């Protein structure tokens, strides 16, 4: 490949990876926050996320015939997904984890795996009764159009991106904007509000926080609500990005996002975002490894195709856990929420 084509190609891969990475980052936040307060891998989070995706699908499907601003539809979908996923997460915690508080760690972990499996089938049956399995998003018109095509008038950053040969769709840009907004809101809640302070206190030491008058269980519920709402957002974004979801599609993004949380240092919010972005780019880079193989003259790299790019997360997870289990931004006194 010539250098003149290689650079735009690489830029596209990296920007595409970042877009994907934002989805992982938002999912990873759900894992990392719950881990922060309970030291529990919430296996059911991947299904909370898929629930968001299913809700988003339903909203877009119901609103498809309605003539309404596309952004308004998106807002409704996001709000509905946030509400339902958030409440679902709270209910899961109430029914499946709270009775086991104080039990050895493996007990709630096994329960979490069980809840995850139950939710997969419940979602499948709910959609199945309407004769659907794969849910294809009906996005508002224009969402799939190029963000900044040659025919449209580009300004600012869009012009810069087009200039270096990166092509983005409008939905990719929406995805990035929504993710950044969610991060900002999350940051505000965690660092600037009373509730955020209480959550951080519970994450540091639940017993002492209890002595200071903080209701630990309420704060845990609040954490699950926030984590679930983030899961709902990421579900809708994921559905928009990939177009099709089904009840079982939470597993791979779930593990990838968990890996992102571990990579960044579990319990750390900036870590989760960093990890998500890194893994998104890594996945895209593995996906085009045949190009690198051609470039470097290594023929064998060409066999590494798309199916391996999903494996990237697993291998990254194994390597991180073996060599640096505290993650990139994880410290022993990391701020956990």
């Amino acid at each position, binding site marked *: 490949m010539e250098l003149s084509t290689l650079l735009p190609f690489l830029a596209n891969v990296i920007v595409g990876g970042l877009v994907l990475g934002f989805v992982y980052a938002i999912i990873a936040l759900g894992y990392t926050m719950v881990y922060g307060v309970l030291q529990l891998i919430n296996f059911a989070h991947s299904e909370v996320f898929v629930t968001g995706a299913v809700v988003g699908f339903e909203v877009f499907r119901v609103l498809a015939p309605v003539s309404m601003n596309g952004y308004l539809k998106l807002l409704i979908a996001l709000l509905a997904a946030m509400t339902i996923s958030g409440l679902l997460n709270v209910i899961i915690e109430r029914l*499946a984890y709270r009775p086991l508080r104080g039990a050895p*760690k493996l007990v709630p972990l*096994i329960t979490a795996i*069980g809840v995850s499996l139950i939710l*997969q089938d419940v979602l499948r049956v709910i959609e199945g009764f309407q004769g659907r399995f794969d849910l294809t998003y009906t996005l508002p018109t224009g969402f799939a159009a190029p963000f900044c095509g040659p025919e449209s008038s580009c300004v600012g950053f869009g012009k810069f991106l087009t200039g270096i040969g990166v092509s983005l769709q409008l939905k990719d840009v929406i995805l990035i904007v929504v993710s950044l907004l969610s991060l900002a809101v999350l940051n505000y809640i965690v660092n600037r509000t009373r509730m955020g302070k209480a959550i951080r206190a519970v994450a540091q030491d639940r017993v002492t926080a209890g002595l200071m008058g903080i209701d630990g269980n309420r704060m845990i519920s609040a954490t699950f609500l926030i984590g679930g709402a983030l899961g709902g957002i990421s579900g809708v974004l994921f559905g928009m990005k990939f177009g099709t979801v089904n009840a079982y599609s939470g597993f791979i993004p779930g593990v990838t996002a968990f890996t992102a949380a571990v990579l960044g240092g579990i319990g750390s919010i900036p870590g989760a975002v960093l990890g998500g972005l890194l893994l998104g780019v890594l996945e895209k880079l593995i996906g085009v490894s045949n190009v690198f193989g051609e470039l470097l003259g290594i023929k064998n790299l060409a066999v590494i195709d798309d*199916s391996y790019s999903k*494996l990237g997360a*697993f291998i990254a997870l194994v390597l991180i856990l073996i060599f640096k289990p505290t993650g990139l931004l994880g410290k022993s006194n990391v701020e956990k929420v």
Partner: protein
Amino acid sequence: MTAALQQKPRASAPDRTILLVLFFIVTSAFLLVSHNGDLLGQMGPVGTALKNPIVEALMVSLFLANILFAYLWKAAPWARALVSVGSLLFVLPAAGREDTSLLDLSIQIMIFAALALGLNIVVGLAGLLDLGYVAFFAVGAYTWGIVGSPRFAEILKYFGENPGGTNSGTLAIGLVLTAVTAASMLYISRLTARTAPTAATTWSFRLASVGVVAGVILTVRALLVLLAPQADGLANGLNAGFFWLFLALSIFAAAAVGVLIGLPVLKLKGDYLAIITLGLGEVIRVLANNLDLYSAGSQGITPIKSASVPWFDAAAGALGFAPDQYYLLFLYALVLVMIGLILTVNVRLDRSRIGRAWIAIRDDEVAAQAMGVPLMQTKLIAFATGASFAGVMGMIFAAKQQFISPESFVLNQSIAILSMVILGGMGSFPGVILGAAVVTLLNLRILPGLGEATANISWIPQQANPGQLQRLIFGAILVAMMLLRPEGLLPNRRRQLELHHDDNQEDESAQGNAGALGTASGDVYSAGYAPAKEDDKAGGSR
């Protein structure tokens, strides 16, 4: 106090010899009738009802309950022996002669029972949650699947065409490298057992383990290249006589993979171990899916040979079995022997030094280490033992199915095995076997039966068919057991006594295990939060 209460009802249970024998006769009769096609044909509507898959599953369950009752009930020893031996050696094969699928089902149940027993060592005894257990099953299955099928000739052909500078010298190098590095690994581990490990020993150990892998790859590669000229003679795979050699090899291969996976990951604890084993299990599955040359990718390997034992076939023929049932009957017998062996190994291990070391680690890792239990070695033995059971059963599975593909080794399978262990009761051998029987019956008979029964109901679309509700059932088992009866259906007596002995001291437990990475302190679970009905069954902490 509780202990005495628990013991009493068993001791004073009424003698149920007659009931047991009656139950055996009735359920055997039902099983034999409901699997006899000719007889069912003559029975009209009753026959059709008996053929219903759910009714059939009920018959099989009731029949298998015989063996459970023979174990649980107080009865004369002759009655217990009659029921268990009669069921397994006479009635099941007899019913299986009329209906081959019953033989298949029995083999499947026993394969899963063995898998559950293996996972029970890892999860139930040693307290290490392994979510990638099915990977070892896959190793065993592919070990025989590759050499016992036409795939072998194709691999040989490939290596014949691409020898890549390999010759008999490579074989020698590979063998020497393997031997030297394996010996040095043993030597280093001996050395570090006595003195504290230093950076030098750690790194030389890692180097040696890489050397072993390289040596094995070189050796296997050289063997394949050297065997390549024989490819035409092996068009159907290796001679079935090699079955026995590979039965032994599959045990070692799976155990070796267990050690190789265990070495880096076993220093992690609790949930991190769970997620890393999940990841490695998926890695092995994806490799099986993508290494088309060896595993034929997603289309799978077929046909896979079974062993051929002429005298056994003759005996089976004399008993009236059809020739196409010989291999199933043979595998049935083999798997019976294997499960007997595995059960013996389990019971012996449980009562041995190593078994007590496992339980010590599960209950409190730090205390166990302080008492002189070598942590890594003990955990590795647990991993390797569990893996070896899975390996041998994987091979039998491949021979039974005559077909393997990565579909058989998905994460759900690992979780199914986990739910068997948890349903029966972690650490309890009879419980785990019961769990395996229940879950396998649900999975292979009752759910498909439900699916078939509801397939034509108009308001249930195909996408919501209850025949596919495996995940829901596994999930419900996991959640319900953890919330309601964490010690399982047939709890291990010692464990149950431990559990109900010191309710008040339980909550110390979590401190030992919490904060797997040292980033979090265990205080989150500390005293005052423990509900009364808590237990440490799930292994790991106390």
